[in-house]
């Protein structure tokens, strides 16, 4: 069935398109305008903005952490509407089902969960399989496990580390590798409470810097497209911009992704010893094109922080809002879940909010800076439309600023920044750039051959309303959203990478598990028989 969207303003940065034109798709893929054939179905989208489906590169949507947060905060997700017919569980609050529904309604069609501990991969896949409509994938978390740290300490060859990463990606069916507070999670188990770039993990004699750099080189050598996804040390602490700048200085000229950098954009100025250092940080980012960042914007809302940086989460417990939390010392890994509430009247929260926007506005290249709230850590993903509106309107930012504590404005540059994002820049940041960051060849653009994941928005003065309720969303060519409401539920795919590696590592790993845990390693592997949708996986190619 050939479908034609006609008359819309197509914004497709990958192909340099920014103007009125028609779009055709058939059998789930975008096709070139066919000659001598007319479309079976036509949609008049004149006056609308047409983009590829959006891609979220970092959003905690599935797995043990998110599920723990659900159980910790039953009050956070009450539903209030009876369900409409024929949509099972469509009224459950913060469920897998709602995750797919709400993302789709905003025109998002691919979302990556950024932090899954290898031993909890199956749980994460079970949740992902239950999320309708969107495609998804996850990053597996490495860099605090004894096997790897011992290998680094003992000077293992890069090839053997590459094999280990390959085997872990295969066993967990992940799309890339994240490293969280490199070495710090292990150090916390040894009762260390603060861990910076040059602090050393006891027992291994390795600094955080050495760990992330060695892992960064190895990830690069696997030829998977996504660079090491790094959660740096000292998250949230005053003056931590120094850590961030030093991390960029240590990035070896190789690709490196720095996660939720707003949480590292802090100086120590002012009477509270806490200020925005976003300007220095952005300057550094602009000067280091090997580095990409996502912002992790804060919005004023009740949230819950979910992080594998268990040391940081432990230190956050006394400031929890409300004061409770889960601290999990996992297998060679960790997890902390602590609720919080960002308040516009709170000096620190207001600085955080401003610092995030400064980063967005001061980083020159939207291919380098990614749109995230680190859902749900900075704000729930449902606030994205409001954040888009803030990026697109200096007036709207001024309205927000008028509500901030007066002393905050002296410690940020935000009021002076008049930049307003265009639709083209928004599409770059949420479509073209994620395509490149994850090496997607089949999405993030509207050229022929791409999957027909398409979001159509009706422009209106209220940009947030525009992005909140897409006029049309097509997933693999199926119309799934009409006028901001899901009209049809589909099952998405799970995206994974399968780099080549020497399978000899498997017998070493089997022996290691047997020796350390007295358990077969296969107990931790994700196997087809465990999944309701084993055929839903799609492979993202590696570099050749």
């Amino acid at each position, binding site marked *: 069935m050939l479908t034609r969207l006609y008359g819309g303003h197509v914004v497709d940065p990958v192909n340099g398109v920014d103007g009125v034109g028609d779009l055709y798709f058939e059998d789930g893929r975008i096709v070139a305008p066919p000659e001598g054939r007319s479309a079976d179905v036509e949609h008049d989208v004149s006056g609308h903005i047409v983009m590829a489906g959006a891609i979220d590169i970092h959003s905690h949507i*599935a797995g*043990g952490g*998110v*599920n723990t947060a*659900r*159980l*910790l*905060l*039953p009050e956070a*997700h*009450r*539903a*209030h*509407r*009876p*369900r409409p017919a*024929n949509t*099972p*569980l469509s*009224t*459950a*609050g*913060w*469920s*897998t*089902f709602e995750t797919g529904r709400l993302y789709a309604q905003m025109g998002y069609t691919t979302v990556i969960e950024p932090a899954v501990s290898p*031993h*909890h991969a*199956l*749980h994460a896949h*079970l*949740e992902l399989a*239950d999320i309708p409509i969107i495609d998804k994938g996850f990053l597996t978390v490495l860099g605090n496990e*004894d096997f790897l740290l011992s290998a680094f300490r003992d000077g293992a060859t890069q090839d053997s580390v590459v094999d280990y990463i390959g085997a872990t990606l295969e066993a967990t069916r992940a799309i890339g590798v994240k490293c969280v507070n490199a070495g710090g999670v292990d150090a*916390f*188990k*040894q*009762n260390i409470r603060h861990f910076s770039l040059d602090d050393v993990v006891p*027992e291994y004699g390795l600094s955080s810097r050495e760990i992330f750099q060695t892992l960064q080189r190895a990830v690069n050598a696997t030829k998977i497209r996504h660079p090491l996804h790094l959660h740096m040390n000292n998250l949230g602490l005053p003056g931590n911009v120094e850590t961030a700048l030093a991390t960029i200085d240590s990035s070896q000229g190789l690709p490196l992704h720095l996660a939720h950098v707003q949480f590292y954009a802090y100086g120590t100025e002012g009477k509270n010893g806490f200020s925005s250092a976003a300007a220095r940080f952005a300057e550094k980012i602009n000067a280091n094109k090997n580095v990409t960042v996502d912002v992790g914007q804060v919005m004023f809302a009740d949230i819950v922080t979910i992080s594998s940086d268990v040391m940081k989460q*432990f230190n956050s417990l006394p400031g*929890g809002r409300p004061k*409770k*939390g*889960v*601290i*999990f*010392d*996992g*297998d*060679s890994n960790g997890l902390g879940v602590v609720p919080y509430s960002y308040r516009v009247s709170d000096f620190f929260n207001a600085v955080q909010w401003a610092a995030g926007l400064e980063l967005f506005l001061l980083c020159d290249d939207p291919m380098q800076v990614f749109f995230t709230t680190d859902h749900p850590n900075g704000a729930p993903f449902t606030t994205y439309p409001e954040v888009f509106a803030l990026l697109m309107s200096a007036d709207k930012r001024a309205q927000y600023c008028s509500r901030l504590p007066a002393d905050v404005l002296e410690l940020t540059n935000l009021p002076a920044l008049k930049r307003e994002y265009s639709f083209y820049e928004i599409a770059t940041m949420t479509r073209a750039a994620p395509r490149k960051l994850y090496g997607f060849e089949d999405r993030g653009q509207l050229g022929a051959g791409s999957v027909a994941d398409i979001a159509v928005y009706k422009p209106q003065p209220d940009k947030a309303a525009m992005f909140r309720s897409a006029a049309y969303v097509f997933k693999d060519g199926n119309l799934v959203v009409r006028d901001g409401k899901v009209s049809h539920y589909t099952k998405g795919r799970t995206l994974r990478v399968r780099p080549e590696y020497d399978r000899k590592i498997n017998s070493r790993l089997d022996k290691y598990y047997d020796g*350390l*845990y*007295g*358990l077969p390693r296969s*107990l*931790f592997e994700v*196997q087809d*028989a*465990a999944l*309701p949708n084993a055929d839903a996986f799609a492979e993202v190619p590696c570099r050749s």
Partner: protein
Amino acid sequence: MSNATLDGKSISSEDAYEKAAEILQAANFPLVAGLGADVAGAQAAILLAERLRGAFDHLASRDSLADLEVVRSAGIFVTTPNEARVRADLVLLVGPGLTGYWPAIFDRLALDKETVHGGKTARRVIWVGPKRGEAKIDGVEVETIPATEAELPGVLAALRARVGGRPVALPAAAAKKLDAAAEALKSARFGVAVWSAAGLDSLMVEMLQGMITELNATTRFTGVPIGGRGNATGVLQTSAWMTGFPPRTGFGRGYPEHDTWRFEASRLVESGEADAALWISAYSGEAPPWEDVDIPLITLGPPGSAPKHGLFIAVGKPGENYDAVEFAQETSSMVLRRASAPAELPTVAEAIAAISAKFSEDLPC
């Protein structure tokens, strides 16, 4: 051969599914309970409860909720049995009957072996309130702090007080013993408390976790909960991602509502609010807890577990008769259990699908 019975008499599977669908569809507020099932079975059961606008509960909810109550009100420190195995230089066993709740406990925690990470040392093992004769572990010197079940809350409170340096009103000898234990806890590198909520109540778990929080002011200390029977933790997790809530959740108003009192299975049945029940107990065939109630009952259980009354449909045992995903106590994670004795029996999910296929069309899907 059919594996279904009605009031103890054999009927065909087709008739059984038909009859089950009739019962559930005729009910105003059906209950899906027991839920002793693998993850796929739990998913099917929860979807069924939602479709019927009924409620669901798990047979070991009491135990899951005892821990969860503490999580919700104060929070919790936990680790995995494997991390305890490689790292715990001190293991605090809490309450009687731990080996009953988790037969492989001592082997898994390798209490007789040295720690591997964080330094290689022998472990110190302290057991508060073991059953008589229970605190014997091969190759391990177990220090015990005796307490009957009735004394246990008081002893835990006193231990917590001594860890925090607060006074307790105890005879000198008992106080000295507690002080020694408190000192041991405080000087642990990575201490791990192990408990089963099946043997404690929420207040005791809260006391224990309160003590762990205090210990973390100066050292590292955490806990290993022993989960409830019948894949209670796996069903809890599944319920959380599907509905946002644990079991004891109802859909009567068309959206999930969670209430530990209102949607407790026995209360729903005994009060007459539930007017039909689907009881699932695929692991053990455990019978429903309610008594002297005559509402239409459908039971899904392993062969041989048919009750005298009502409709029974035999299903396989998860992980034994069919490949199944469940929460594993030994890893604290979801795992695939390969069938050790495959059998020609439907899975829980298949039985529910077969029942659902018989619903008349006016029921939303």
